[in-house]
C-alpha cells in the first residue's frame, strides 16, 4: 500500500493536471459547438430557413393537409392496378439487376477479376451507376423511350446493378481462402472454383442483400411515377396536379400500406432464410 503522505502529494499533483485537462476539454467542446452553430447559421441563411418562414408556412401546411383528409377511399379501388404495377416494376428491376450484376461482380472483385485494368474500369463504372439516382435515370429514359413503366424498370435496374454488383464484389473479396485453395489443389477450373468455392460462401449474404434491395426498389418504384415512369407515383402526381387532394391522400395511404407490406414480407423472408 502507498503511504498516506505520498497519496496526498499525488492527489495535489493530480488536481493540477485535472484542471489543465478539463480546461482543454471545455475549450475543445466550445470551439466545436461554435463552429457547428456558425455553419448551421450560414446554411440556414443561405436557404432562407428561419423561424418566421417556418411559422408562416405552418398554416399553409395545415391548409393542404386539411384538404387531403379524409382520403378518398373509394379511389383506392382504382389504385389496385398501379399498385400491382409498382410491385412488378420493383420485381423486374431487381431481377434485371441480379442478372446484370452476376458477371459484373466477378469482374469487380480483385480475386476473381481477369485483369487489374478490367477491375478498375468495372469499379469506376459501378460507382457511376450507383451514384446516379433512379429518378434521374427515369427522367432521361422517359424522354428517350416515352412514358410508362418500362423506363421505370430500367431505371431501377441500372441503379440496383451498381449497388448489388459492388456489394457482391466486396463479399467475394472477403471469402475464406481455405476452400478455394483446396479446390485449386484439386485442380478445379476457374468456373468450378467460383461455383463450388465462392458462391456457397457469399450466398446467404447475397440473398439477404437482394431482399433488402427489393425492399428499396419498392420504395423507389412508388416515386418513379413522379417523372412519368409508371406505378403509384403517377397517380399521386396526376391527382395532385388536378388538385384532387383527397385522391392524392388515398395514393399516399396506398404507398404507405405497400411499403409496410414489403417491409413485413422481406423481414419475414430474411428471418426464414438466414
Amino acid at each position, binding site marked *: 500500500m502507498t503511504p498516506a503522505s505520498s497519496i496526498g502529494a499525488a492527489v495535489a499533483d493530480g488536481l493540477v493536471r485535472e484542471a489543465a485537462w478539463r480546461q482543454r476539454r471545455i475549450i475543445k467542446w466550445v470551439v466545436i459547438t461554435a463552429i457547428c452553430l456558425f455553419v448551421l447559421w450560414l446554411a440556414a441563411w443561405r*436557404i432562407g430557413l428561419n423561424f418566421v418562414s417556418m411559422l408562416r408556412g405552418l398554416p399553409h401546411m395545415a391548409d393542404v393537409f386539411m384538404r387531403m383528409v379524409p382520403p378518398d377511399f373509394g379511389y383506392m379501388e382504382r389504385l389496385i392496378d398501379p399498385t400491382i404495377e409498382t410491385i412488378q416494376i420493383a420485381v423486374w428491376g431487381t431481377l434485371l439487376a441480379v442478372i446484370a450484376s452476376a458477371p459484373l461482380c466477378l469482374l469487380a472483385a480483385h480475386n476473381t477479376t481477369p485483369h487489374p485494368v478490367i477491375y478498375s474500369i468495372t469499379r469506376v463504372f459501378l460507382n457511376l451507376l450507383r451514384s446516379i439516382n433512379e429518378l434521374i435515370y427515369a427522367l432521361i429514359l422517359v424522354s428517350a423511350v416515352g412514358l410508362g413503366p418500362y423506363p421505370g424498370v430500367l431505371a431501377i435496374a441500372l441503379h440496383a446493378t451498381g449497388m448489388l454488383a459492388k456489394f457482391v464484389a466486396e463479399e467475394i473479396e472477403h471469402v475464406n481462402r481455405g476452400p478455394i485453395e483446396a479446390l485449386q489443389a484439386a485442380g478445379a477450373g476457374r468456373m468450378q472454383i467460383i461455383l463450388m468455392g465462392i458462391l456457397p460462401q457469399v450466398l446467404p449474404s447475397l440473398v439477404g442483400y437482394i431482399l433488402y434491395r427489393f425492399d428499396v426498389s419498392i420504395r423507389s418504384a412508388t416515386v418513379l411515377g413522379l417523372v412519368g415512369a409508371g406505378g403509384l407515383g403517377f397517380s399521386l402526381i396526376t391527382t395532385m396536379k388536378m388538385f384532387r387532394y383527397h385522391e392524392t391522400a388515398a395514393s399516399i395511404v396506398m404507398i404507405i400500406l405497400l411499403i409496410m407490406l414489403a417491409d413485413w414480407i422481406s423481414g419475414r423472408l430474411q428471418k426464414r432464410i438466414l
Partner: protein
Amino acid sequence: MSHSGNFPLEQPSLTYFGKAKFLAYTLAAAIFLAWSANSLELNAGELMRSMPVIGRYIARMFPPDWTVLEGLWGPTLDTLCIALWGTVIASIIGLPLGILAAKNMHSPAVIRVGALTILNILRSVSELIWAIFFVAAVGLGPFPGALALGVNFGGILGRLYAEAIENIDPKPHEALRATGANHVQAIMFSVIPQVLPQIVSYNLYWFEVGVRSATVLGMIGAGGIGFVLVTTIRLYEFQETAAILLVILVLVTIIDRASAVLRRAIVG
C-alpha cells in the same frame, strides 16, 4: 476431393412432397414473372428497339459541356445546405421519438407504439412525396426541400436511434443506479456516452445520403443542383446534363470521404 461418408450422400434427400412444393413455387414465380413482363411491355423486341434509342441519348451526352460549371456553385451550395439542415431537422424529430420508441427506456406502451407508428409513417413516405406536399404548402425553393428531407430522415434516424439505444450495455446503468445516482444522472453518465458516437456516425452517414437525395429534390422544385439538372434534361441539353452528373459524382465522393474521416475523428 475426398468424399467422407457424411458429405452430401447422407443428407436426407428431398421428399416427393418437398420436391413438388419446390416445383410449385418455381412455377408460380415463373408465371408471375412472365405475366409481369407482359403487362410491363418488357420483352426482347422492346429491348432491341429501345436500346439504340437509349444509346443515342447517351451518345448525345458527350463531350460534357463544362460551361455550365460557372453557374453551378450556388445550386451546389444550396444542395449542401438542404442536406445539412435536413439532417439537423431529422435529428430534432428523430431523437425524442427514438428515445420514446426504445424498449429499454420503458415509456408507457401507448406512447411507445405511438412513437413507432409515427416513425413508420415518416419513413414510408419518401422525401420526394413530402417535398411535393411542402412545395404545395410553402412554395418552390430549398426551404421545403430541407423540411421534406428532415421529416423523412427523421423517421429513419428515429428508428436507428431507438435501435442504438436498445443495443447499449445496460450494466453501467445498473452500476450507477447502485451508487445512488438517480435515473436522469444514470442516463447522462451511461446511456448518453454509449449512444452519442453512434448518433454522430448515423447523422454523418445520413447527411451523405441527404446530399444524394437533395440532388433529386430539385426535380420537384425544391432548389439546388437537382433543379438545374432537371432543367437541362427537359431542354434536351444532354451535354450539360453529363457535366452536372459528373459534378454530382465528384461532390458525393468528396462528401463520402470527408464524412468517413470525420466519423473516425469523432468516434474512433
